[in-house]
């Protein structure tokens, strides 16, 4: 009866959320008086998981799993669940994980709760707090099945060091052609830039920018801060920016440390989508914009004046604090 955690990697390197979910798993294991086993795919530096409380790593080295495949990954993890007699499985809230977790739920007859924001309130009955109504509320959800799958929200629980002796084993799940009936044939992905899902800072702009040709300064501001860029719904509907940048209730949720909203008035759907961000800054010409009521800091002013100044001053700040 251990806790199994799926630690995601990309090109062999663990993602930031891998250490968050490992930390979460360690907290659950402590409550249940058991240990944490991690499963990773083609990852190097598996030992690093010991820093966050993992005592055993099952590393799958398999050429066919170099590209994410939800069904094959879900089946491999399910096999590890049986091998370890795990009753609780911890996963992240990445797009890939939200693809595979429901498959595990179906296969293992396991209750799955995504978007969990805190360690379990209790482990018997097993109750967790999660966001609901697209971040307009929270729910306490009780899981009644024998096996439980918990999806931890990005940047909610955090990574906590908890040095533990760790052993790494090779694990070869039995996969067949039937696991590969959906095939990745092309990946089109921005390389070397922060994504909305895992960026510490997100810089977002709305219709106040007046047209797609004015996004240069938004991208420059994001570059200076190492931030991801995002936009409001009308901006993506107008085709000024790709849909992948739309944050809000029907777009992506944002749970960054810092969210900077420029020229976004703050419709209720947008505010819901970004409510999990820790610090919010609003720059808007209209002092009555609803976003000011949901923000921590604000500047009432024209983006075309404020943003270039902010870029200049941040460059100086970065140079001094480098």
């Amino acid at each position, binding site marked *: 009866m251990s806790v199994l955690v799926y630690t995601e990697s990309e090109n062999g390197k663990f993602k930031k959320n891998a250490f968050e979910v490992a930390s979460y798993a360690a907290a659950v294991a402590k409550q249940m008086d058991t240990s944490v086993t991690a499963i990773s795919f083609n990852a190097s530096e598996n030992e690093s998981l010991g820093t966050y409380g993992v005592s055993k790593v099952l590393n799958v080295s398999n050429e066919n799993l170099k590209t994410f495949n939800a069904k094959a990954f879900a089946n491999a993890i399910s096999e590890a669940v049986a091998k370890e007699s795990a009753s609780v499985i911890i996963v992240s809230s990445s797009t890939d994980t939200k693809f595979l977790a429901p498959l595990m739920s179906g296969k293992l007859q396991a209750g799955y709760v995504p978007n969990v924001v805190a360690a379990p309130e209790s482990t018997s009955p097993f109750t967790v707090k999660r966001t609901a109504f697209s971040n307009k*509320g929270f729910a306490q959800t009780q899981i009644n099945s024998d096996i439980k799958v918990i999806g931890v929200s990005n940047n909610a629980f955090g990574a906590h060091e908890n040095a533990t002796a760790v052993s790494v084993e090779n694990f070869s799940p039995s996969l067949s052609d039937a696991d590969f009936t959906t095939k990745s044939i092309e990946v089109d*992905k921005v390389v070397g830039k922060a994504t909305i899902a895992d960026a510490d800072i997100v810089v977002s702009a709305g219709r106040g920018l007046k047209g797609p040709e004015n996004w240069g300064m938004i991208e420059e501001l994001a570059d200076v801060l190492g931030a991801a860029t995002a936009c409001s719904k009308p901006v993506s509907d107008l085709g000024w920016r790709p849909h992948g940048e739309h944050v809000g209730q*029907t777009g992506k949720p944002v749970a960054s440390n810092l969210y900077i909203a420029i020229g976004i008035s703050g419709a209720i759907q947008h505010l819901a989508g970004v409510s999990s961000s820790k610090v919010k800054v609003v720059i808007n010409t209209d002092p009555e914009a609803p976003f000011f009521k949901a923000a921590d800091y604000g500047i009432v002013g024209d983006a075309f004046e404020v943003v270039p100044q902010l870029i200049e001053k941040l460059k100086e700040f970065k140079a001094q604090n480098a």
Partner: protein
Amino acid sequence: MKILVCISNVPDTTSKINFTDGDTKFDSNGVQFVINPNDEFGLTRAMWFKEKQGATVHVANVGLATTEPTIRKALAIGADEAIRINAEPTDGFFVAQQLAEVVKNGGYDLVIAGRESIDYNGGMVPGILATLLDMNFVNTCVSLEVDGTNATAMREIDGGKEKIATSLPLIIGGQKGLVEESDLRIPNMRGIMMARKKALNVVEPVDASKATQDTKFEKPEAKGAVKLVDNVDDLINLLHNEAKAI
């Protein structure tokens, strides 16, 4: 091609969310209900398959009689027939088992659901359904083409898109991108009149277990007042020293 679109009946995106009965239930008082937006993108894509490729489109909803106006709207948009499974959809695992029965009995080639409902955000129904029925599955699907039994889908990934080749029978968890916002259809009078005559079959739920249960709800804490500054130096100073965000 026979398509089933699974629709969820959810509060309109502009709704303010409140809870009742000692914070154990969503307060639907004064709330306007709509087709879940992620499902509506899927339904609209299904209309394209109907018009261009001669597909038959059914919609299914797990819900009590109060969801029928939303189901009628799907019929008015152009679905041919509807099925309502007469049960309260309180758990994704339960809902998937109900829909599995409908898919099995209906012989559907393609099942389109939303990647998540915007109320309870479980995001699990299409995936669980795929394992229960051993069908192929693509989540966060932003485009879908079907040629015979071959399907090509795009799915959104963190930081980009991935093109996927698969085959029918297939289930997708759809979202915006399947069609554009401007492609969404507002039912016209003729559609609304025709929808009244279309079959809306009510079936009783099968025995199924519930894996989870929401026991209590709460609203986010109220935010403190915003600190307004009038220059970027002060802003950088506050973000660095007070918020520790940069």
